[in-house]
């Protein structure tokens, strides 16, 4: 019985880790830019496909594939910003938002076409003999996922708190107009945020891809729901909050699937999101409603 519960707990933490990895970047971008970049989830996907291209397509070593995949994910995020997001004035938030939908649609369908709308399999990055602790199975991929999530989430939180650039990011997130008043180069800060966010998403794509061993061009369609839910429930730009909420959501979902029914798994995030918006719109951990 205890073993069962622990198994579900860790399954939930795995699920939650995925959500954290995708939500961290999303909420960072939302905090700094003030826009909800729906296409962020596709950076996750792009890194998986780059890995596929390099390792399976060009038959190159896995390590190589990983490095290039992460790099191109970060680059993809930057390109999307530079080509599209930057060019639509924030005074037109709806057009900006729809453009992110458009970008997402383009990227997903373009890649899907290249693989003839199939679902190719991936070569594993890291696998090992499963570790069994207290009856709970920890596979290699799962351990990698936990490790990477901890490092990236922890690293991001520390970086934001302690580094000077992190401080600039926090300033812009709180009030972009005031940030300009203190001579912060908001353009540069935005680009840094995007690169960091995309880097995290790209890493996320690889470690999750390592677990599922499939490449799905439309993975964002199931993932972005969680991305939104975590960001909204945690609060705009709250990175620590997103970590907690993401993991919690994963755990709740796992227990729901186990004890209630699998069809309800994907409704929880939605319900949480709606409730938070009604009751505490700034999010559980959000402190101020963003200005500017």
């Amino acid at each position, binding site marked *: 019985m205890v073993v069962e519960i622990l198994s579900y707990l860790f399954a939930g933490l795995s699920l939650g880790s995925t959500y954290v990895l995708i939500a961290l970047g999303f909420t960072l971008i939302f905090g700094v830019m003030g826009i909800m970049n729906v296409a962020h989830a596709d950076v996750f996907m792009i890194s998986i496909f780059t890995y596929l291209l390099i390792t399976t397509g060009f038959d190159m070593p896995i390590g190589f594939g990983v490095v290039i995949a992460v790099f191109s994910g970060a680059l993809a995020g930057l390109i999307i910003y530079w080509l599209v997001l930057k060019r639509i004035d924030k005074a037109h938030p709806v057009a900006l938002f729809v453009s992110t939908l458009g970008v997402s649609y383009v990227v997903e369908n373009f890649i899907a076409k290249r693989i003839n709308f199939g679902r190719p399999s991936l070569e594993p990055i890291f696998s090992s003999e499963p570790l069994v602790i207290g009856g709970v199975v920890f596979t290699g991929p799962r351990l990698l996922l936990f490790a990477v999530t901890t490092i990236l989430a922890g690293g991001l939180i520390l970086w934001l708190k302690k580094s000077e650039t992190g401080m600039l990011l*926090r*300033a812009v997130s*709180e*009030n972009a107009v*005031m940030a*300009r*008043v203190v*001579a*912060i*180069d908001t353009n540069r800060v935005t680009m840094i945020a995007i690169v960091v966010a995309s880097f995290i998403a790209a890493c996320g794509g690889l470690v999750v891809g390592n677990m599922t061993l499939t490449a799905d061009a439309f993975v964002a369609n199931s993932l972005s729901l969680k991305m939104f839910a975590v960001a909204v429930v945690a609060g705009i730009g709250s990175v620590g909050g997103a970590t907690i909420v993401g993991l919690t959501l994963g755990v709740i979902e796992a227990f729901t699937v186990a004890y209630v029914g699998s069809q309800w798994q994907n409704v929880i995030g939605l319900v949480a999101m709606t409730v938070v918006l009604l009751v505490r719109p700034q999010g559980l951990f959000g402190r101020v409603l963003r200005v500017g």
Partner: protein
Amino acid sequence: MDLAVKEGTITTLVGSNGAGKSSALRAMAGIIKTEPGTVSVHGEDISSLSTRDRIIEHGVVLIPEGRSVFTTMSVADNLQLGSRVGNERAKHGHVATFTIDEAYELFPVLKERQSSRAQTLSGGEQQMLAIARSLLMSPKILLIDEPSMGLAPLLVRKIFGVMKDVFSRNSVSVLLVEQDTSIALELASDAYLLEHGTVIAHAPSDEMRNDARLREAYLGKGDALGRSHGTGKA
């Protein structure tokens, strides 16, 4: 609107609500557009420069209206945002003479609360923080928007008293926008009166104090029976 600030002095912009005073400051800082019209420093046209460039290259620093600090960040961080700018200006040849130590000396309460979040400070303390931060940016031209809002006049006079020394030492020119004309005319040597976005009077403070147009701008013109209409200030 045609305004000029003499170097090393404090000039004030007075006028009733909606006269366009805040907008003038924000336009000078580059936060809002000023077409048509130009903003220049020592004769150099800076209208096309971004806010950031105006700060770094020309030392045009704005202290916006209201609590213009980053409430989610600590006092020390807020100040650091200012000293970063001062350091950057130093690299452009504008050596910073105002340091964080001096800021703490000037405003001891900031030193006490350096690790607290700015949100926990009182209104007056937040204003002090905003001012300290701005001084750390090595301003040459300081644009101050309604510093007295929500603060006791005594506190405002005290803060300014403390700042005047810094101003003269660094030959900072100040443009002050104020609703409270008595404080404004007390602190500044020169005054502009604004109404509906245009300058309707310009005089040294002593003269402006007694200028009938000042009263009119605030209290509205009187009718035939000498009664005055209009918004007036409290």
